[in-house]
């Protein structure tokens, strides 16, 4: 039964609230796990909540103009919008979101929306580090999109559709129907792209989290930073749900979604704690090398 429009909007808010809280807890727990690996105690799991509340409670002291303000708005709208276009839980009315607006291509391109707006906003700040961070980020993004695109094309050919719901439906009925097992090459290519997408080590030089504040958030403070932190949770959640839907059989209820997305995200930490960083030019060469070949192999394997 199709829900009425007000009910659907209310459901979207519920769904968004769930993914935000879950995304923040996910970031917190992953930070804690990394700390344990490095022999530290680490922050409490709820630290991201504290950060956001603290950031939002502070006074803004600086502004560089209108586009500067719109940057985080674009970013958060990009994250939330991406989530809105992905059906999070199969068969659930509450978590269906607005996935009827478009298929996988819409989601893939909407991922750019926030990055574009954020890049523009950070540019208006006039800080050279912002522009350097953006140029590195965009350069790396174009590189990891290649194996990702190949993998998407491979599964589009495999399932004969770009409709996310249909792709999830096709993977129901046991783990042996997951894309992970029916098309492993595509999954490998996409997972390597995912490492770049989530910008953990070895691809973290774009945001350089440990040392100088490079990258777009350089000039943002207080509630603007709070919005960026919120977006990180929502956007991560949206990407994880997308990956789960495409490659790991989707989810038919919220606990399954939580477990699966946690494990997918854990791959980042697993790799990130084991490898040092690439420079951006190295990561471009890396992504256009073996992962792209794996992606091509995935397409060839499925299509011919």
């Amino acid at each position, binding site marked *: 039964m199709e829900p009425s429009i007000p009910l659907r909007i209310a459901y979207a808010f519920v769904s968004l609230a769930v993914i935000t809280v879950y995304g923040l807890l996910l970031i917190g727990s992953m930070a804690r796990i990394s700390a344990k690996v490095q022999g530290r105690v680490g922050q409490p799991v709820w630290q991201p909540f504290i950060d956001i509340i603290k950031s939002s409670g502070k006074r803004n002291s600086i502004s560089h103009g209108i586009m500067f*303000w719109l940057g985080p708005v674009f970013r958060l709208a990009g994250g939330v919008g991406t989530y809105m*276009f992905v059906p999070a839980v199969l068969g659930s009315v509450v978590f269906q979101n607005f996935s009827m607006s*478009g*298929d996988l291509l819409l989601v893939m391109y909407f991922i750019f929306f926030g990055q*574009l707006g954020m890049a523009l906003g950070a540019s208006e700040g006039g*800080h050279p580090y912002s522009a350097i961070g953006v140029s590195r980020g965009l*350069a790396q993004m174009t590189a990891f999109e290649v194996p990702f695109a190949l993998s998407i094309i491979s599964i589009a050919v495999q399932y004969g559709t770009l409709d996310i719901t249909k792709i999830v439906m096709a993977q129901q009925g046991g783990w042996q129907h997951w894309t992970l097992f029916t098309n492993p090459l595509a999954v490998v290519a996409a997972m390597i792209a995912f490492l770049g997408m989530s910008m953990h080590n070895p691809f973290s030089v774009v945001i350089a989290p440990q040392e100088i504040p490079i990258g777009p958030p350089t000039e943002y403070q*207080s509630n603007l930073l709070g919005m960026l932190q919120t977006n990180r949770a929502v956007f991560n959640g949206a990407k994880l749900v997308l990956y789960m839907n495409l490659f790991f059989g989707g989810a038919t209820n919220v606990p399954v979604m939580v477990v699966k997305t946690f494990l997918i995200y854990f791959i980042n930490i697993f790799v990130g704690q084991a490898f040092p960083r690439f420079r951006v030019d190295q990561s471009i060469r890396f992504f256009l090398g073996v992962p792209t070949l794996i992606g091509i192999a995935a397409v060839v394997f499925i299509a011919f």
Partner: protein
Amino acid sequence: MGWTTALYLAATHFLYKGMMWLSVAGASLRTGTRTMYLMGGLIKRMPLSFVSFLVGIIALSGVPPLTGFGGKWLLYHSLIAKGWYFEAAASFLASGIAFLYLYRMIHSIFLGQPKDEHRTVKEAPFWLIVPQLLLLGAVIVFSVFPRLILDPIMALVGARYPAAGFAFEGQTLVSSLGYWNGLLTIIVVVVVFVLCLVWMVANLRKPRLVKQFNIVFAAERPFRPETTHFAFDFFAPYRRALGFLVRGRSERAWTAVAGLATSVAGAIRRLYSGNGQTYALHVVLYVGILYLFLGVR
């Protein structure tokens, strides 16, 4: 499918490319230069040109709510349905690269640090702004109602090729692979954007509009826009990673030819040195050689 895609792409590209050309023409007219890294920070002086350029790059890069996404959607659906998978991947890479150059353009021209000599630049002339705003309006209308532009195209193509592959169900464009509802997309995006904007504005607490160089800069205080506007050699990582592909082979060949010509000319110049004594030596040597030959005979 191919014809529909091509006609749609041509029509929409006309709209937003025209808009961007006009906008850049205005910037170039007012600053008197066409070199991008000599501009910067023009958003404060030319806000209308900036807005049309902004909408232009959102549309051109194919980010969903605007009309460019329709083109991308049609393109990938046609390519995948046709079985041209690697072409689809290549066009995906191309649209990513489009992102790079568009960002570089808008950053170098309109954002970043304004230069001293451009502090009094005026907005582009009225007759450059008007067509931009008209095109802007057209882009927005076609983004909200993609049927306005797609219905005539599909009627035209459908008359020739009846099994065109794309069809509308209400506002939803459907192909054999998927679906796209332009109206719903833009509604969702606008609502989400406005909600985020409201949250941002509600949380603003009297921020101070700061001066140009008031940035957090590792204990240094930058004071020249030329040293602070990052615009030259913008995608250095890319050049380092893949630059060997664009270093031209023909350029290298012609450099070798030029080097050869220079060294030959240098050798000849030793004879024609422009020095009277050298020429006198030539004459003496000529007479000497002539004498030797004549003497032998």
